[in-house]
């Protein structure tokens, strides 16, 4: 998992994102500013000495936003920041899902518009690639499309909030029943019911454009069209689908949103989108977009496709006989100087037990330092030879 995390962070650095460290424990009030009620409920809470409530972070966008609006408030915008770390949530539902999960994410703060949206989406795709995943796909949608539909409906506010909460629960049976009780019979009503099916390539934007009659939805379609063509320029045209039915936290996201899916994984690998209102809540209004990758799921995807990262192998196990300890320690240090991974034994061993010890460590080479200071070494397929330490180092470093 650490290797995957490193690969993703390295990709983010290549895009000019600066790594920031945010706390795992935050003031509950501060965290709550960026979370919906359901997410707030799931936070692990504890109380501070003075009685105020603290919480363990359930996601890290809010802490990063706080940092951008606080410590980094004089840093010029746009800010490109990335982070990695555990997030903790309490899931009272029937599954005991793991409470601690690992996320890596990036935020582009202070840039609005399609170019910024496309940068973040393309980078998310490249991050999955860097982690070693293939056959993933990215679904791009827009929160304004649905908001526009809803604004355009002539319904009392209770019905609108009912529609929202049914959609948030993905309950289309309930939605259909609710819509049947309303006098609505418009193309937009039909569109609401066909929500999850509105996916595809650029042609669906045109099709959807004919069905909606409100400025907000039309604007969303225009933005999606621009982002889609920019993603083509990034070389991500193949991996991207447009998804007008994307259902995400309606009150948090303010523009383009996206999710990445792997093959045969039941939930999204990565999620993100534009959240232009969050920074303002911390006193530094700024447009922002970003995403996070669920590392645990990426690991599951890699394991299923047989591409789980190999455990790192030791290059050398250095054993020693009673008089050879000092030489053995020097040999270990030289090997490390050449970038090799070497373990020096903590006790003296005879020839036979040294073999078993090195095999147990999974080391590529067993080097046995003898009383004479010479090193016993059997190159792959070769017979045992005794060589001066420097020669062994040079030959191992040379790749034999």
């Amino acid at each position, binding site marked *: 998992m650490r290797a995957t995390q490193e690969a993703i962070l390295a990709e983010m650095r290549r895009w000019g994102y600066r790594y920031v460290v945010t706390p795992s424990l935050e003031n509950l009030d501060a965290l709550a500013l960026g979370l919906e009620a359901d997410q707030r409920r799931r936070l692990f809470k504890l109380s501070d000495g003075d009685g105020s409530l603290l919480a363990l972070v359930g996601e890290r966008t809010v802490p990063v936003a706080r940092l951008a609006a606080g410590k980094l408030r004089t840093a010029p915008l746009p800010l490109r920041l990335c982070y990695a770390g555990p997030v903790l949530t309490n899931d009272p539902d029937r599954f005991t899902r793991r409470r601690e999960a690992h996320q890596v994410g990036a935020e582009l703060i202070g840039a609005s518009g399609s170019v910024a949206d496309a940068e973040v989406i393309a980078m998310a795709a490249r991050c999955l690639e860097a982690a070693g995943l293939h056959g993933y796909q990215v679904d791009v949608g827009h929160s304004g499309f649905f908001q526009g539909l809803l604004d355009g409906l002539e319904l009392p506010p209770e019905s609108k909030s009912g529609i929202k909460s049914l959609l948030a629960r*993905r309950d289309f049976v309930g939605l259909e029943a609710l819509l049947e009780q309303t006098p609505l019979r418009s193309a937009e009503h039909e569109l609401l019911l066909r929500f999850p099916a509105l996916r595809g390539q650029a042609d669906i934007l045109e099709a959807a454009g004919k069905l909606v009659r409100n400025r907000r939805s039309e604007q969303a379609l225009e933005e999606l069209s621009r982002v889609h063509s920019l993603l083509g320029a990034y070389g991500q045209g193949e991996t991207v689908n447009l998804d007008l039915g994307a259902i995400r936290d309606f009150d948090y996201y303010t523009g383009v949103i996206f999710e990445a899916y*792997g093959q045969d994984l039941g*939930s999204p690998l990565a999620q993100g989108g534009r959240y232009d209102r969050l920074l303002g809540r911390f006193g530094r209004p700024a447009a922002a977009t970003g995403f996070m990758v669920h590392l645990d799921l990426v690991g599951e995807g890699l394991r299923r496709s047989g591409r789980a990262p190999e455990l790192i192998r030791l290059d050398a196990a250095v054993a020693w006989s009673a008089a050879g300890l000092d030489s053995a320690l020097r040999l270990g240090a030289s090997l490390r100087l050449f970038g090799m991974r070497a373990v020096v034994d903590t006790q003296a061993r005879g020839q036979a037990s040294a073999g078993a010890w090195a095999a147990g460590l999974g080391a590529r080479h067993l080097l046995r330092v003898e009383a004479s200071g010479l090193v016993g070494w059997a190159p792959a397929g070769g017979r045992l030879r005794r060589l001066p330490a420097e020669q062994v180092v040079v030959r191992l470093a040379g790749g034999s």
Partner: protein
Amino acid sequence: MISIAIPTGVLLQGSLDLLRRSGAVELDREEIGRKLLVEKDGLRVVLVRPADVAAYVDYGSADLGVVGKDQLWESPGPHYELVDLCFGGCDLVLAAPEASPLDDPETWPPAMRVATKYPRATAAFMERMGQTVEMVRLHGSVELAPQLGLVDAIVDLTASGRTLRENRLRVVAEVGRSTARLIANQASLKTRTEALQELVSRLRAHVS
């Protein structure tokens, strides 16, 4: 290959009938009951306990599932609830002994003790009514509890009302209406869109 989880019990026959009517796959009850997992006509059908359908779908081990709404009340998750399949209809009701003073919500005591197999649905209903409730979670023969004075009332499913009558219970309030539903995994809808949409529309078209 698309996989669909169907439940044992009262919804099994309806599920198999729907799969057959829609031309998706023809399976007999014996075969699926014996093998639990059958691959036929490009479809993988798995037979699981009613309460487990949502778990298989939510984790993506099954793309689709047929499940009673009564189970979904108790197992909220990230699945999409797509179609009301209209069979297996029954009501979740609050029922009390015939002689009980419980009637309109106004007559309910400040705190009511209720036995049920459906704690989440019961809690949501009582909260809507503003009723304080003490819940006793039972796993079977819930009808017995009020007769022995364990609880004031029960919240349970009833199709015909016969079991209630036989136990001299009467319906005090409707809590919810349940029928079989078609649910789908969130990622399957995105990664196998075409095959899944095609099957979903076929099933939808054959809802009776």
